[in-house]
């Protein structure tokens, strides 16, 4: 049977809980927005139920501690096709098994979760590295990003610790939402529909007068630290893949 949910993590847990409650066999779990009509099967939609989601989370915690919950949550943010089934597999196996299965690398699907988690970790690290703030006239350090995975929920903490006395905004242009920090706390925000299209680049008009000076200085620094005798384009591209270039000041 196919289950649909609202696309949130808690929604997914609710669907998994429901499958146990009803004792049904699950073939696919998919966000309702991605569901494609199928002549032969009627999907079952499960609405998010916070109490159910919490019970699943507690169950995972009992079996594998924080490490297991972290693994599943981060993997979920990969938005990868059928990530729901891998997570479902993990939960099923955990429930069936006496001991902690989080690091059972012999299990192909669990190993797959770890591989996805590694990719997420790499993307988070890249965002820590590649976010480039530009200072606006109203004193908000603003950065645009377009990560491969939905890692915005995972990166706020790092920037909050680093820049507690600044106002900053990091906006995901693909997923159309951002995190805004006002020197006290982080809020998720979304710009109006109209503004999305203008967001490919920040307009010069909204930036402070000296912003372009520092960008120029950074670009010239980037050029002069290079050692031409050691040029190694392949290595360079491996570290800074082209898809990240559009928001890098030095590129």
């Amino acid at each position, binding site marked *: 049977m196919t289950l649909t949910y609202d696309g949130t993590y808690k929604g997914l847990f609710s669907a998994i809980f429901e499958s146990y409650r009803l004792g049904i066999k699950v073939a696919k779990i998919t966000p309702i927005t991605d569901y494609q009509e199928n002549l032969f099967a009627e999907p079952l939609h499960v609405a998010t139920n916070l109490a159910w989601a919490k019970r699943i989370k507690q169950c995972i915690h009992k079996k594998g501690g924080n490490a297991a919950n972290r693994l599943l949550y981060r993997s979920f943010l990969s938005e990868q096709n059928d990530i729901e089934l891998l997570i479902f597999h993990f939960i099923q196996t955990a429930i069936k098994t006496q001991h902690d*299965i989080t*690091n*059972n*690398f*012999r*299990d*192909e699907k669990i*190993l797959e979760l770890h591989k996805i988690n590694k990719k997420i970790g790499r993307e988070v*690290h890249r965002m*820590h*590295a*590649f*976010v*480039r*703030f*530009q*200072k606006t006239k109203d004193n908000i*350090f603003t*950065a645009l990003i377009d990560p491969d995975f939905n890692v915005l929920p995972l990166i706020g903490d790092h920037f909050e*610790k*680093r*820049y*507690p*006395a*600044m106002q900053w905004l990091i906006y995901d242009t693909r997923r159309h939402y951002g995190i805004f920090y006002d020197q006290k706390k982080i809020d998720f925000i979304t710009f109006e529909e109209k503004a999305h299209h203008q967001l490919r680049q920040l307009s010069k008009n909204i930036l402070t007068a*000296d912003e*372009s*000076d*520092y960008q*120029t*200085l*950074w670009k*010239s*620094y*980037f*050029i*002069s*630290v*290079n*050692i*031409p*005798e*050691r*040029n*190694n*384009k*392949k*290595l*360079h591209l*491996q*570290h*800074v893949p082209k898809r990240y270039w559009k928001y*890098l*000041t*030095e590129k």
Partner: protein
Amino acid sequence: MNERIKEKLEILSDAAKYDVSCSSSGSKRKNTKDGMGNSTGMGICHTYTQDGRCVSLLKILLTNYCIFDCAYCVSRKSNDVKRAAFTVKEVVDLTMNFYQRNYIEGLFLSSGIFQNPDYTMERLVRIAKELRTVHKFNGYIHLKTIPGASEELMEEAGLYADRLSVNIEMPSELSLKKVAPEKDFKSVLEPMSFIKEKITANKSERKKSKKAPMFSPGGQSTQLVIGASPEKDLEVLTLADDLYKQKSLKRVYYSGYIPISEDNRLPVIHQPPLIRENRLYQADWLMRFYGFALNEIVDEKHPDLDLTLDPKAAYALRNPAIFPIDINKADYEMILRVPGIGVKSAKKIISARKFGALREGHLRKLGLAWKRAKYFITCADKDFKFLGWKPEVIRQQISSSILTKAANSNQLSLFA
């Protein structure tokens, strides 16, 4: 924009780039609520140069005016280059503004020696102090200690810096004296010992009281140039091993000599020895993270690292009696010694085998380099087809692919 600043930045970053260290790791410094920046212990490379090196810090010289005349250095006094000097305020302003925009993890500040060592060192310290105290900067600061600077200044430097470094420059004192008439090993090793003592004392102080100020919490490092003097890898690695053991260094950096000068005290080479440099780093890693002793990597009989083979594979082929090892039974330490298995895959193996015996199929998926590892291990498949293979044959198998790789990245000329 102030064109002069841009020109200074170009001159003084160009002159600093031959210092290969750009690490921002190894130091934990918490931020304050009204402060700027932190260090978590894990470095971040914010970008990479065209040559693939990490750019983590704003790496500049305070000035490239210098009273010394070291042959290997672009800033030596006899070299005809454009000279410039930053003011304290300019360095502070660049650091803060680059940091706010998330371009960098912090500052790496070095300098040519102008007037005298103390005069120079005093300014480096003042910059670090101003960043920490006036601007509440808690990002990473790496300060180079100027040879000949007083102990008082070094001590003050350690209070603001996350890491201090003194470059040993050459693998032997003989070579150092040849290329740097004003320097000798004593002038490098003494400040290293001083810093080491301070760091050790500070650690025990901080154990007693968390409030004691930190002293160079990221330790100290050094750099030496290879390929500009006749020393074999045995000498280079013996020196490094001593520095790790006796001076408790965090890192020794090896910098393949780049022919930056036509000084006749140095050899003429056409390409920097990048493969040798890479092999030295691999050997260095084996000593620090893989439990290898120096004499297992190089010895009198094998004084140079094999350029066509990584040092762990070379070790395995010199010691065929130790292999193959049984992946399902061997200790972690032995698994680490298998060519093609790194720290991460060794740990994965240890935790995966608790759930049942591992077969080739499992191992291939774990992320180790099966192509190399397969000659040195056995697993639950009981497949012994590589068991009788002679070291020379295995050597051909595993080095050929490395040679091809090297050819693709245009480094073949080094073997010619």
